[in-house]
């Protein structure tokens, strides 16, 4: 607490004017003073941007200031959604948007599916009576804390042409592979690396769910001489279902928003093989010349609609899990 001494002195300095303020407005209304900073920041950096997003999405031109932008109605949305065949990105006028959308769909299905599978297996293993359980829990969780840039650079170093993975491949008689320059492989590694980086989080939540299952259920099953496999499929998994549902939807919401680690690892390449929607928004609004704010805002509103649906799913999953 000694470290906080300067902070204390600062707060003490604030004390006198605060007391004077309280005498003027009364103790009950003082609650608004406590709320004020938080609300102002929310208003400026969250609520206002939501409104502005609609303004940007319905205006065109290259100006940054909304007042200088001509109103174009739904033109941005129309050009994003302009496709002759919705299953074929190259028939769309914004083919990159559709490619990134398809990539995101493919990425999310693979990433969430395998990530939940591996986190479940890991959580089941760690839920056993095992030595060094805390240590291994930490091991699987550690990559979650690493920054996306660090994660991407670690794997870039391993996957580069003269990297350690190719060295092993050669040692076992194979040919070196340009992992990140081949469309198929680079998609595989993007999914792999993002599972590597995030599965610890979901493992932890599933583990908490497993440990919340009452022990006496298992004791009763053991009395009935139930096999371990039967206990897993008839007791553990059904009782874990509510947690599982929450975890899946959470992973979907996060998965759709994936950007950082892929952007640093592959830059969306080769070509646009690993470009996801958020990177499309970033490229359109900030990296490309000219910066098309309107198009980027329209794309982000479409993304928001998708996330809203997933969030509603989550709320339903939550409600179910509370009911038990």
């Amino acid at each position, binding site marked *: 607490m000694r470290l906080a001494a300067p902070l204390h002195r600062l707060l003490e300095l604030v004390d006198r004017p605060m007391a004077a303020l309280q005498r003027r407005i009364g103790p009950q209304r003082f609650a608004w003073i406590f709320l004020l900073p938080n609300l102002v920041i929310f208003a400026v950096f969250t609520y206002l941007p939501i409104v502005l997003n609609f303004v940007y999405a319905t205006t065109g031109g290259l100006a940054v200031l909304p007042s200088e932008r001509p109103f174009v109605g739904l033109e941005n949305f129309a050009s994003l959604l302009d496709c002759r065949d919705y299953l074929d990105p190259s028939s769309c006028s914004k083919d990159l948007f559709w490619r990134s959308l398809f990539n995101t769909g493919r990425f999310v299905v693979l990433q969430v599916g395998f990530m939940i599978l591996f986190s479940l297996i890991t959580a089941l293993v760690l839920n056993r009576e095992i030595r060094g359980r805390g240590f291994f829990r930490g091991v699987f969780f550690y990559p979650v804390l690493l920054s996306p840039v660090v994660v991407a650079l670690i794997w*870039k170093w391993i996957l580069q042409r003269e990297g350690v993975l190719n060295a092993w491949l050669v040692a076992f008689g194979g040919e070196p592979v340009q992992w990140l320059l081949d469309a198929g492989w680079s998609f595989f590694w993007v999914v792999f690396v993002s599972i590597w980086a995030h599965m610890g989080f979901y493992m932890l939540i599933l583990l908490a769910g497993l440990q919340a299952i009452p022990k006496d259920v298992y004791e009763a099953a053991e009395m009935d001489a139930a096999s371990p496999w039967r206990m897993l499929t008839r007791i553990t998994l059904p009782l874990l279902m509510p947690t599982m549902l929450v975890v899946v939807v959470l992973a979907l919401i996060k998965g759709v928003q994936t950007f950082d680690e892929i952007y640093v690892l592959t830059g969306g390449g080769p070509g646009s093989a690993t470009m996801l929607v958020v990177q499309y928004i970033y490229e359109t*609004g900030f990296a490309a010349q000219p910066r098309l704010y309107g198009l980027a805002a329209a794309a982000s509103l479409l993304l928001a609609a998708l996330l809203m649906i997933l969030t509603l799913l989550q709320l339903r999953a939550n409600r179910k899990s509370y009911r038990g």
Partner: protein
Amino acid sequence: MASLATSGVLDLVTRTRGKGRLHWTDWLAYGYLLLGLFLMFGPVVWVVLSSFKSEAQLLEFPPTALPYGQVSVAVPGYPEPLPLFRVRMPDGSLREVAQIRRIGIQAQMVDPAAPETILRVDIAGREPVRALSLATENYTALFERFDFLRYLWNSVFITVTATLIMLLVNSMAAFALAKYDFRGRDLVFVLTIATLLIPPTVVLVPVFLVVAKLGLLDTPWGVIWPGAATPTGVFLLRQYMLTIPDELIDAARMDNASEWKIYWRIVLPLAAPALAVLAIFAVMWRWNDFLLPLIVLSRSEQFTLQLALNSFKGEMHTQWGNLLAMTVLTLLPITLVFGFLQRYITTGIATTGIK
């Protein structure tokens, strides 16, 4: 007798808690965990090892596991230490000699024990003598040639300031929502929690405009303020403050304490555990933050470590040595925090479900 002893030791090492012998599923479980240990820690260990290799050694293929360096020896009569080579002599013997200089495909060598005679050796017949050595030049170059300390300072400044502001602002709001009864309280609470539904990626374009309009582009404040109020923080602190008994606050009011004094003298200290958990999260969020700094900070002297790493990736295409050293220095603080606070972090996440 011996086999009995080894099986005893084996049993002692591998015994599970509670039950006696290892079931085959236990072996499977340990195998899985060891594989996990290798997959999860291996890449990080590999990067740390590689960061201590010299630039020349980083280009080697296949790479050696540990960092090696060529041994050099001081030879009387030569001002600089000379690199040591293992050479097969014409008579078939192997000798360790130091190289003076290389001329075409010939090298002038000298035996450190007999520095008077100069030997001429075909360069194809020599092999460097190497020993384990940590090349620290990747790290020292960061401080000498690259502006590492500036990026570090930018990151530390943003992380510390943003965390303090967030704790203050969020705890004030949480106190109001937890301990006051006023009209509109529930509405404010719902509006706060509702912002959880708006992921930062969705409002990227307008946040950029707001930051630009406020004149905060290319300043650390442009990164600090947009994330200063978090719904997660308000929610976490409010739930915790609900458990503080109202009697404590009422008693303080009886003693004529001002509301502000009640907040920082009574409520804040009592909420310390929740504040600590939130502080750990905030530090991790800010230290690892990427997308917001990426759009707000465009001048390299304002870069955080994450942005610097990202931009170096492009610029220093062949200079993996410096890039690896910088990666290690960037992951070090988070690793240390995790090492010391592992239990808090994992239980904090398991109980709150945030990261």
